[in-house]
């Protein structure tokens, strides 16, 4: 197999977006019957690479060979014609249509008259779903399914076609033990059939479990491509992280003050289970865990977005029942959500207005807006967090990701939040802005603010946090002092119990 000619070969691929260089001269070769794992931090260029592979993005330079012939893909359809398919992280399903229809969206079974052949479609969908041994009816609507079920449908959809190359973008993120086992079974089957598989994952342990070969991307560059036998977990992490930590991160040690926030046995039905922890003044508390472990849900519960069912929450010594974000803000909390475009900024309004929302949230003015105050605050804070813009009347949509994020943060500074909940604050931000952001966090804690930080980038989390809580399955599994923990230890606790059992068994 090792010697087989590549089905798909990417040579010297470069991709530039306005202001960012997402990929720099990346090489990649896929062979039939191989599972090629692609790992790297967020923003390393994995998604861009697979989008070029499928034809969803065009490359700026480089070439792509399919079975030895140079090909230019202009759309996902071109890719599909060549047998290249992807299951994306963001599900591209049709929510109001049935499972069967989604599975056969691209290649609807037809009768001789050219009409949709529903009975064949439903039967074949049922057969395909049967392969996964899942009880999803082909007739169910996608919107009525859970996220995991939707993911399975997306995988089944990709399998329904004759694929030569199948790209899976973090399929395990939302799957639990038994489902994941089935997924691995399917991958094994596909491997036997001679399909080339690209498998992207954050769960490094899976790389060793199913991978044949692994490629590490970092900052848009191909750092290494190596057979799995020649790789250890330590090496892999080192490749992923790359530079020495003190170059990459910025951290100041601040003396911790009193407890500012305390959660005791906090539970929200189905989202957060029995969470207990304390946060002190000047502390950066890291929340580690896999996607779907309940980190975002915990932050949103602390912020009053979800109603707490049981347990208690004490903020600045007062036991608090938060009914809405308003209450949380009044208590001095601020939340920088992960989904900046949909939850963070009001994109179609100006920077000034976005920052001013913080002033207004503090309910400084009852009825009238006092413009001098708002402008002064906005100008001060925009300068302070270093937003790069022509003018503060500019719409936020015109800013880069990093500057949008700074705007959201400035909003909470404007509301004089004392406890900041940051959910993946550096995702999709270029390296330079990241460092600025870290320095900024250091300054915040120096000014006696406290931070709860959620990040999927373990090195970042470890470097910045004073203490790390590891979550999985909506629970806190383990607490580490940041300087005591290793990535392996954290990952070990982040992987759900049943998954660990199933993987150790195999």
């Amino acid at each position, binding site marked *: 197999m090792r010697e087989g000619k590549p089905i798909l070969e990417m040579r010297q691929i470069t991709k530039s977006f306005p202001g960012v260089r997402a990929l720099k001269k990346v090489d990649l070769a896929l062979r039939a019957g191989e599972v090629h794992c692609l790992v790297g931090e967020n923003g390393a260029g994995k998604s861009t690479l697979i989008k070029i592979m499928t034809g969803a993005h065009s490359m700026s330079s480089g070439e792509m060979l399919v079975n030895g012939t140079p090909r230019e893909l202009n759309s996902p359809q071109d890719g599909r014609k060549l047998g290249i398919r992807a299951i994306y992280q963001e599900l591209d399903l049709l929510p109001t249509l049935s499972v069967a229809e989604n599975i056969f969206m691209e290649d609807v079974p037809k009768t001789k008259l050219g009409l949709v052949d529903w009975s064949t479609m439903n039967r074949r969908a049922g057969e395909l779903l049967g392969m996964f041994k899942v009880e999803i009816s082909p007739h169910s609507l996608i919107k009525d399914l859970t996220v995991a079920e939707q993911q399975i449908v997306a995988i089944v959809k990709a399998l329904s076609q004759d694929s030569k190359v199948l790209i899976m973008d973090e399929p395990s993120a939302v799957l639990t033990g038994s489902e994941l086992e089935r997924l691995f079974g399917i991958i094994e089957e596909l491997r036997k059939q001679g399909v080339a598989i690209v498998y992207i994952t954050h769960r490094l342990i899976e790389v060793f479990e199913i991978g044949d070969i692994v490629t590490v991307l970092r900052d848009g560059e191909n750092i290494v491509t190596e057979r799995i036998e020649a790789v250890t977990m330590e090496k892999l992490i080192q490749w992923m992280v790359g530079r020495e930590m003190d170059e990459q991160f910025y951290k100041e040690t601040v003396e911790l003050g009193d407890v500012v926030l305390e959660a005791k046995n906090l539970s929200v039905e189905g989202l957060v289970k029995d969470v207990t922890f304390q946060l002190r003044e000047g502390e950066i508390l890291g929340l580690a865990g896999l996607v779907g472990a309940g980190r975002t849900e915990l932050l949103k519960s602390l*912020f009053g*977005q979800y109603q707490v069912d049981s347990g208690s929450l004490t903020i600045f010594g007062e036991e608090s029942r938060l009914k*809405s*974000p*308003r209450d*949380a*803000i*009044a208590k001095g909390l601020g*939340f920088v*959500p992960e989904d900046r475009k*949909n*939850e*963070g*900024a*009001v*994109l*179609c*309004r100006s920077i000034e*207005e976005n920052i*001013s*929302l*913080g002033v*207004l*949230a503090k309910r400084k*003015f*009852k*009825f*009238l*807006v006092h*413009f001098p105050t708002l*402008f*002064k605050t906005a*100008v001060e804070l*925009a*300068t302070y967090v270093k*937003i790069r*813009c*022509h*003018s*503060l*009347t500019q*719409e936020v949509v*015109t800013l880069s990701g990093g500057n949008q994020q700074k705007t959201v943060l400035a*909003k909470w500074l404007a*509301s004089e939040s004392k406890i900041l909940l940051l959910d993946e604050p550096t995702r999709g931000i270029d390296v330079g802005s990241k460092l600025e952001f870290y320095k900024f966090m250091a300054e915040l804690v120096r000014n006696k603010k406290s931070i709860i930080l959620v990040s999927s980038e373990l090195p970042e989390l470890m470097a910045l946090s004073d203490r790390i809580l590891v979550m999985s399955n909506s629970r806190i599994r383990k607490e580490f002092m940041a300087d005591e923990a290793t990535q392996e230890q954290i990952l070990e606790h982040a992987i759900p119990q049943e998954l660990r059992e199933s993987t150790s068994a195999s």
Partner: protein
Amino acid sequence: MNNSSDVRESIKSKVPSVLATNPRLVMFLVLVVVSTVLSRGVFLSPSNIHNMLRQYSTIGIMAVGQTVVILLAGVDLSQGSMMALVSMVVAYLNVNGFGIVLPLVVGLLVGALGGLFSGTIITKGKVPPFIATLAMASICRGLATLITQSRPIYGLSKELLVFGRDTIGGIGIQVIIWASVGLLGIFMITRTVYGRGVYAVGGNEKSAHLSGINVQKVKLLGYAFSGICAAIAAIVITSRMDMGGPYVNANDNVQSIASVVIGGTSFAGGRGSVSGTILGTVIIAMINNLMNLMLINPYIQQGIIGAIIVVTVTLNQRKARTE
């Protein structure tokens, strides 16, 4: 950068390019010139302009309320019927010896409560604004006719007729009311905490909620304001016509939406202004006025308004895209 004087500079430097980038203003100026030439100057006579403003004051008042609702990514189709209802309520109370203050207060209250009702169906019942206000329109129309079994109400007291007839310093009171409501709208949207909330909720509801804005309250108040504007328009028209009418031209509702859209407010919410809407109403008024002065076939009037909506909205969007 990033200090207030620079911000001011950058605003100033934009002024000359305003004409190039603002299709409404260009259209307005072109219309003025064309109208003046075609009407041999009659158009620009103060009394003609005054006439025009008086005739479109009710639509102008409605449009101010409609702007807030559309900024909130909604729409109010019940304004026309609400006007009919308020007109009947005010006239009924007035001729039945409740004086003038009570009828006006009750009229405004009916408008506000009707708006709150629509708003509640939209926020609590999760019914799309189009359907909710359509149903509300039907209900208001029915209630308006129920009051006197559809008979118009005559014989209003003289004090009530002030709003539609009298002038202050040569300017019709209804124009002054329009201007006041317009200024109130501009003030509310640009100067108050509530206005900031409207833009935030219309621009991004989730983000507004997470920024501590009471989204439901903002929406409810928006629909209530739209209802109040319809009520004020109803009072003006009742006074102007010297009667309570259960049938107010339903086309007014379309014209109020048209004013908002021509005025550059985005149907997606979050972008737009009350001042734009006022200009939008004036543009519609000018077109109609010109067509009347030119004795142009009234049949093509709604077609011309339609074409103008298509053109202005397209230009606006092109402008937004190039920015």
